[in-house]
C-alpha cells in the first residue's frame, strides 16, 4: 500500500496555506523575496529550495472559451515522491530512500552535499544551500513523521476530548500538513490506487472541466503526487518529455552491465594479452632446425 497525494489544480485558489503549513511543521525559515511581476504573478518564492519544500506556481494561460478568456492555474509543486526515484538511485551514501509507505525521505545526517541528486531529479526538486559552508539537500518528505507518527490530542482546554473528536484529531495528525490545511480540498491524501481511481472518476465525469490525463500516473514510471488540471500540463509548467520509464531503469541497465562489461573487457584484454604473449613467444622461439 503506497500513500500518495492527489492535487486537483482546478480547485486550488492559490491561498498558499500549504506553503505556510509546511514551513510551520518543518520549522523552516522564510526567504527574502521580491515581486518579479512576470507571468509568475504572486508566486513566491520562485523555486523550491532547502528552505522551501513546496511552492505554488501561478500562471495565466489564454483560453478564449473560459470565463474571462483565460485560465489562471495554480499548481502546488514539491518533491513528486517517484515510485522509482532517481535521487535515491543517484545518492552514493543512501541518504535518500523510498519507504514502503510511499514517501521518499532522506537522512540529512548522511547527506554529504555531493548534489548528485540535484542532477538526477527530473523535476529539479532537491536544491542545495549554495551560500552555506555546510550545504545540505532538503526536500518535502510528505510529512513522513506525521503519517507514521502518533500525534494525539487527549485533553483540550483542560477537558478530556470525546472519542469521536479524538479520532478526528488523530486522523488529522496522520495527514501531511499541507493536505490538512488545504482550504478548498484541492489536496487529498490516501492510498495511491484509490486516488487514481478517484482521479479518473472525476476526470471522466467532467470532460469540459478536466484535461483527460492524470499527471504522475505514468510519468517517470509513476509518482506519488498526482495532478489533475484544466489546461494541458505543459502549459501549467509540468515537463511533458519525461516518458513513462523511471530513469533508474535506464541507469540500472547501464549499472548492471558494469560488472559484465568490466569483466568482459578484462577477459578481452586478457585474451589479447595472451595472444600477444603467444605471438611474442612464437617470435622469440628458435627457428625450427632444418630437417634432412
Amino acid at each position, binding site marked *: 500500500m503506497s500513500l500518495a497525494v492527489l492535487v486537483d489544480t482546478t480547485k486550488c485558489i492559490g491561498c498558499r496555506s500549504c506553503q505556510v503549513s509546511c514551513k510551520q511543521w518543518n520549522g523552516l525559515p522564510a526567504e527574502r523575496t521580491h515581486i518579479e511581476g512576470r507571468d509568475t504573478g504572486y508566486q513566491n518564492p520562485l523555486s523550491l529550495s532547502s528552505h522551501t519544500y513546496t511552492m505554488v506556481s501561478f500562471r495565466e494561460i489564454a483560453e478564449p472559451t473560459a470565463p474571462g478568456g483565460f485560465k*489562471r492555474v495554480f499548481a502546488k509543486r514539491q518533491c513528486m515522491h517517484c515510485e522509482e526515484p532517481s535521487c535515491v538511485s543517484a545518492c552514493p551514501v543512501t541518504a535518500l530512500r523510498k519507504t514502503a509507505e510511499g514517501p521518499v525521505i532522506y537522512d540529512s545526517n548522511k547527506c554529504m552535499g555531493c548534489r548528485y541528486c540535484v542532477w538526477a531529479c527530473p523535476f529539479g526538486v532537491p536544491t542545495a544551500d549554495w551560500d552555506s559552508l555546510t550545504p545540505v539537500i532538503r526536500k518535502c518528505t510528505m510529512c513522513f513523521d506525521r503519517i507514521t507518527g502518533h500525534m494525539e490530542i487527549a485533553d483540550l482546554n483542560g477537558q478530556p476530548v470525546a472519542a469521536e473528536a479524538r479520532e478526528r484529531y488523530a486522523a488529522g495528525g496522520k495527514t501531511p500538513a499541507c493536505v490538512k490545511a488545504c482550504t478548498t480540498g484541492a489536496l487529498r491524501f490516501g492510498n495511491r490506487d484509490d486516488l487514481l481511481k478517484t482521479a479518473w472518476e472525476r476526470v471522466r465525469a467532467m470532460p469540459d472541466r478536466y484535461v483527460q490525463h492524470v499527471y504522475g500516473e505514468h510519468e517517470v514510471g509513476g509518482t506519488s503526487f498526482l495532478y489533475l488540471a484544466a489546461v494541458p500540463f505543459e502549459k501549467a509548467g509540468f515537463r511533458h518529455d519525461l516518458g513513462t520509464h523511471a530513469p533508474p531503469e535506464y541507469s540500472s541497465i547501464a549499472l548492471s552491465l558494469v560488472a559484465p562489461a568490466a569483466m568482459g573487457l578484462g577477459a578481452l584484454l586478457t585474451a589479447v594479452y595472451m595472444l600477444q604473449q603467444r605471438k611474442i613467444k612464437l617470435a622469440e622461439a628458435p627457428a625450427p632446425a632444418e630437417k634432412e
Partner: protein
Amino acid sequence: MSEVSRRQFLMGSGGLLGFLGIDLTPAVSFTESRADRITRGRQTTTICPYCGCGCSAIVTSEQRDGRWVAINVEGDADHPINEGTLCAKGASLYQMCNNENRLKKVLHRKPGSDRFEEVDWATAAQRIARLIKDTRDASFTERNAKDQVVNRTTAIASLGSAALDNEECWLYQKFVRGLGLVYIEHQARLCHSSTVPSLAATYGRGAMTNHWIDLKNSDVILAMGSNPGANHPISMHWVMKAKENGAKLVCVDPRFTRTACVADVYAPLRSGTDIAFLGGMIKYILDKDLIQRDYVLNYTNASFIVSDDYSFDEASGLFNAYDPEKRKYDKSKWTYKLAEGTPTEPQRDMTLQDPRCVYQLLKKHYARYDMETVSKVTGTPVADLERVYETYASTHRPDRAGTIMYAMGWTQHTVGVQNIRAMAVIQLLLGNIGVAGGGVNAMRGESNVQGSTDHGLLFHILPGYLKTPAASLPALENYNKTNTPATLGASSVNWWGNTPKYMTSFLKSMFGDNATPENDFGYAWLPKVDDGVNYSWLQIFDKIHEGEIRGMFAWGMNPACSGANSNKTRQALAKLDWLVNVNIFPNETGWFWEDASLGIPPSNIKTEVFVLPAAASIEKQGSITNSGRWMQWRYKGADAPGDARPDGDIMNLIFAELRKLYASEGGQCPEPILNLRWDEYLHDGEIDAEAIAKDINGQFLADVTLADGKSYKKGELVPSFAMLQADGTTSSGCWIYAGSFTQDGQNKSKKRVRETSGIGLHPDWAWSWPVNRRILYNRASVDVNGVPYNPRVPVIAWDADAGKWTGDVVDAPATIPPMAQAGGKLPFIMNEEGVGRLWTMKLEDGPFPEHYEPFESPIDNNPFNGQPFNPACKVFKGPMDKRAEPGGAEFPIVASTYRLTEHWQTGVMTRNCPWLLELQPQMFVEMSETLAEEKGIRAGDVVEVKSARGTVLAVAIPTKRFKPMTIMGKTVHTVGMPWCFGWKTPNSGDSANLLTPNIGDANTMIPETKTFLVNIEKAHGKTLRTVPELSATRRA
C-alpha cells in the same frame, strides 16, 4: 574542508536564522519526534485573529524557563467551520507568538524627541491618566451652544478595536463613554459600517443573515463586491461543497480574482457601478416576472401604498424633499399611506397593480436600467449581463436558494449603503431571505469586528445597536419616546418596541447600583451627541487639523495606513498633544514621528507618544464573534512576551490611575468616572473576562416575578433578553448577547458539540446572537401555514400536532403560530411593519438605490441621471481634501484597492511574520497588458501611482486579469493595488491609502477607497528599497 560538528552546525544555523524569529529546536530534536512532543504538550483552542470566518486552531504549548511557549499551531480538525483547514495567515500563527519583532516594553516618546525610551507600566499609566485628565478637564462641555446638557469632551478621540475580545470591547466602550468621549470609532467604520444601516433598513438587523457552513446549501452563489477566494478562504471550503452538489459560482469583479478562477460564470464590471449592474438585474427579474410571488406578497412591502409626497425625478436623479444647500433629504416625507381605522395599518394592494404600490414604483424606477444602458456604464458585455442575471434569477423558485457573498467591493463607496440595498431588494424579490443557502452574507473581515460593532465602539451606537443619546433628549423618557418605534399593523411584532428595557438595563450595567430611578439611571452621565452632527472617522481627522481634538487612542489600530488619504491622517497625528498606541508590533502610527515623508523633523513634532505592548490573541482568554454571529471562546495558550499585557488589564491600569486622580483632585464632572461599575470585573487585580461576559449577558438585580408567572432571584443571570425590564430590576451590557451565559454556569461560547444530522446549523457548537438563532428571519423560510418552501433543506417547520416549531430557533417568540393562524405574525420582527422593505424610508440617500458615479469618475455623462455623484454625501473642503476632475486628463485611470490572502488589513501583523512577507513581499500595482504597453511599462518595473492626494511607488504586474473597458464609448483602464504595506517594513513600499479620497457614504461616511482616479508612470531611478540588502534574492 573544515570539520563542522553536528552541534556547531546547529548552533551556527540557529544563530543565523534566529533573527527571523524562528526557533529551530522543535524541528531538529533528536530525542523525540515532533508528533510525540506535541502529544505531550498542553492543548488549547483559539480562534484565528485574522478574518471573520472564525476558524479554530489548536495551539500546543510547553513550558520553557517558567513561561508557556507555543510550539505548534494548526487547524482544529473537530471544528465545524474550518474542519482542520486554515489559510496562509492562520497557518502562520506560530510566528505571531514566536517573533523577535513583538513589542515587549512600554515605550515613551517625549515631545520633540527622536527616540523612544523604555518605561515601566506604572509610570506610563500615571502619565497617561494625567494627560487624559488635563485634556478632559480643559475641554469638558457640560452644556452645548443650544444649552442642552451634553457632558462630554470633544478633545479626545478613540480609534479601536476589532482586535479586542468581546469582553474587552465592551469594557473599552464603558471606559471611553465614562470619560465622556463622543469621537469613538474603529475598524467597523471603514469596512462594514455601510452594511448595518443598509440591511437594517431592509430587514431590521444589520448583520450577516446566514453563516459560513450554510453556503453549502446554496444553488447559486454570487460573489460580487468581494473576493472570498483571497480574503475569506475558508468560505471557499463550503462554496466547493456547494459546487460538488451542483451549485454554480458566479463572480462579478473588475478584476479576474482568485475567486473567479473557480467560478462557473465571470463578468467584469467597472468599479463603482454595482447599482447599475444590480438595477439591471431588478429590471430583468420584474420584466420576466421571476419573483417568488407568495413570499413577495406576504413577507415584503411590495403591496404597500406609498404616500403621495414621495417622488423621484429621473433627470436630476433626486428624490423628493431634497435640500441642496445642506445636501440632505427630509426622510419624514417618505411614508406609507395608512388605512383608515385602528390599529394603524398600512394601505395595501395585494394585486400589485396600483401605480403607487411599492412593486409598481420599483418597476418604474428601474425601467431605465435596460441591459444596453447598463452595459455602457458598467463596461460589462450584454451577453455577460444576461448570463449572470439568468443564472441568479433562477433562484426565485421556492426549492432553489441563491446567496450573495459581499464585502468591501460594495461597502467602501459613496453609494455603499445603496449597493448593498440593491442586492437586499433582489433577495426579497427572489424569496432568498430566511432560507437555507440564501441570505445576505456580509463577510466581515476581522475576527471580532462583529463583536466590536455589537458592543458599540462607534460614535452613533451603544452596545446592542441602541442609538447614542442625542443632545436634544434631556431625559431617559425623551430618549425612549424618540427611539422606540411604534408598531405598524396588527401582524407586526416590532421587537424594537422593547427599547426602553434594553436602555435601562444597559445603564444599570454601566453604573451599577449608582444608577437609580431617582437619577434617571445615570442617563445624564452618558455623553450626548449633537443632533445631526457626525463624529465619525473622516470627521475626526478633520477636527484634529482644526485643533479641536488634542489627544487620541489608537488602540489596536493603525490609522496612519488604514484611513483614506493617509497624508492627511499622518499630518494630523503630528498635531496631537498626545497619542496612546496599543499594539503587538511596531507600526506606522506609533512611529509616525519618524516618517521622513511627513516633511517635519521629529524635533518639531510635539506629540507625546506612548506605545503599550499588548498580548496577542493566543496569549489571553475571552470570546470573539465571527461574521456568522457565532460567539466563540478563546483560551490562553502561550504567555505574552516581555511586559506585554492583555488589553483589558491595560485599560484597568489606566482607569485605576484616572479614578485615583479624580477621587483625590476632583475635576470636571467626575461622577461618570467614579460611578462606573468596574471593580466587579477584577480578580486578583486582573481583569476576569468571564465576569464581564456575565455582565454583558445580564442579571436580575432584585427578586422578580414576571408576567408569565416565572420567578427569578436577585443575582441570577437572565436567560434571554425577553426577561429584561425597564424599571431597573435587570441589567444587561448588550441585550443581544443575553442568553450566552446561563445561570447553571454555562458559558455557551465554549460549547463544542457537533450536530449529527441537519442542514449545518450546529446549534450546540458555540452560541450565536440572538438567542442562538443561526439563520435570521427564518420564519420567511416557511409559507403562511408553516410549511418549508424548500423541504430539501428546511430551516424551521411547524409541527401541527405538537403545536410548536422545530429546527432552528424560530425568529419570533416561539409561542407565535404560523401567519395563517390566529395570533400569527409577520417574519421581519425588527421592522415596525413586520415585512421586508423593498422601498425603505430609513436611509439618507433615498428609498431606492440609484446609480450615481463615484466621487472621482472617468466619465461626466452618467446616462441614468444628471448628478455628478451621490447628492447626499458630505464633501470636505479643506486644503488636503482634493478631488480629480471627472473624465479629466490628469488622472484618467480608474484605481481600486484590495486585500491579499497573505496579508491582513494594514499589514502590521502580517508584514512582521516572515512566512507571510515571503509570499507577498512588496507593494505592487496590477494593470492590463494593454495599459502596460501603452505606458512602456514592463513587468517588474517600479512605477509611480499618483492621485490628487498623494503618490505611492509600486512594482508593476501587467496581467490578463484586468482588461480595458469601454464606458460610454470611451476606453477606460483600471489598475489595482493592495493596501497592506507600510513604510515601517523595509523595502516593501507604503500604503495605497496615500492615494484614496476622504469622502464617505451618505449614511455612514465609510470612505470610498474602492474607486478613484490615478495616473501611472514609470518611476525612473526610484526603488522600493529603503535599506541596503546584501542581495535582493539571497536567502536569509
